[in-house]
């Protein structure tokens, strides 16, 4: 029983990163953010949710034109 609870906690913690990535993408689309506003999103909340490397990964996903591509529902070709 305790093992099942631990599995649920593990999946839940991974979902924290999912929510942070999705929130950052949506926020970026709403704001039509430039590089400066993207930089400011690197907050303590993001560091806690996805860490230093993960923060860079999320930034890369929402910058470099991929936010525009994500808005169309596509990956960058």
């Amino acid at each position, binding site marked *: 029983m305790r093992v099942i609870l631990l599995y649920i906690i593990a999946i839940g*913690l991974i979902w924290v*990163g999912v929510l942070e990535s999705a929130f950052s993408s949506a926020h970026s689309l709403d704001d039509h953010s430039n590089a400066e506003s993207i930089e400011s999103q690197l907050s303590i909340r993001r560091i806690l949710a996805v860490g230093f490397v993960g923060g860079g990964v999320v930034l890369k996903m929402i910058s470099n034109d991929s936010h525009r591509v994500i808005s169309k529902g596509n990956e960058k070709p």
Partner: protein
Amino acid sequence: MLSIKSWVQSRGNHFITQFESTSQKLILMFLLAGISYGATGLGAMLLMTLLANSQLGKDASSKHGISALESSRLGGLAVVIVILVYTLGFSLISPYTPGPVRDEAFLYLWCAIFFCCALGFAEDVKPDFLTPTLRLAAKFLVMAALFWLSPKFIPSSVGVSVIDALITLPVLGWVLVTIFAVGFINALNMADGANGLVPGIAVASFGVFFMEYGRPMDGALLFAFTIFFIFNVISGWYFLGDAGSYGLGAILLGYGLLGVAEGTFSAGFMAAMYCYPCVDFLVSVIRRWRAGRSPFSADNGHLHNRLHQFIRCRVSSPVIANSLTGLVISVLTAGFVLMMYLLDALPPDSNLWSLVFAVEVALYFATLAYLTSIQPKTQYTDPL
């Protein structure tokens, strides 16, 4: 002078004793996962720890040339779960649509990856469930179907005129790329022998793919393999297993071929990135063939086996010796390519990467020759 030496030795032994303790390993693994990927990294690390401690897929240490621990072969399954949770969740709550849903070529590629994973998973759960010939035939069939349905994976030029002339011929090109693909997947499986070797190559590769394309799927792959890399190097409790190495082989192959076919990367870049598994596979096949054995029979003659023996004589901890072996090889090959890419020393589509590949091959043979000259012969060439 003697007292300083003995002090260094005693501190070294103290460090190794500390490092060998399970709780110390767990603290270090979770710390690194937390720093690099925050709460998400902790979740993935917890998932991998739980799976590593399950009884399913346990492997005795005697089945491996290097590992001295009872390890789990379910590393591939752990990576798949992490990627699935992240990608499915991200697709559900954001406008992002994964490549397989949008692009037919990616759909076929991921079907092939899934099939390779399933083929390996059957072997991980029940060893010798399928005969080696049947597995090889299945891989040929899947790869042949992939390249038949999606010819865009077949590069039109790799920078070598003879090969270019052959792969541009419709049917011959398809046959050659299929043979190469199956060989590559087997090569990666064969190289999965030291902690951090194959995961290190995977982290460097997905790092490059993610920085080049910025695709969320590449980000998920980079995340999952970075956590696995940390887990594998520190604890040594996991192997990718056949599911992981077949699946990873198919992903790296598909992304690499597509990158070369689209002109994003040169063939030399990919050769330098995947140098160790490819060269070691070819050398191993030739060695076994010359000894009159099956090219796919297992032995301890790989460079990583010999390098491990060399390090093991100098480092008392079996886990540190194992991890150092994998790290030295992955850092000097794929890690070096990643560093050159990050420093922008050469554009990824430059043919000069072939020179980097040539240097890596020369280093491989020089190291192998040196280690062969100082180590007994039969211990490494006898079948397991």
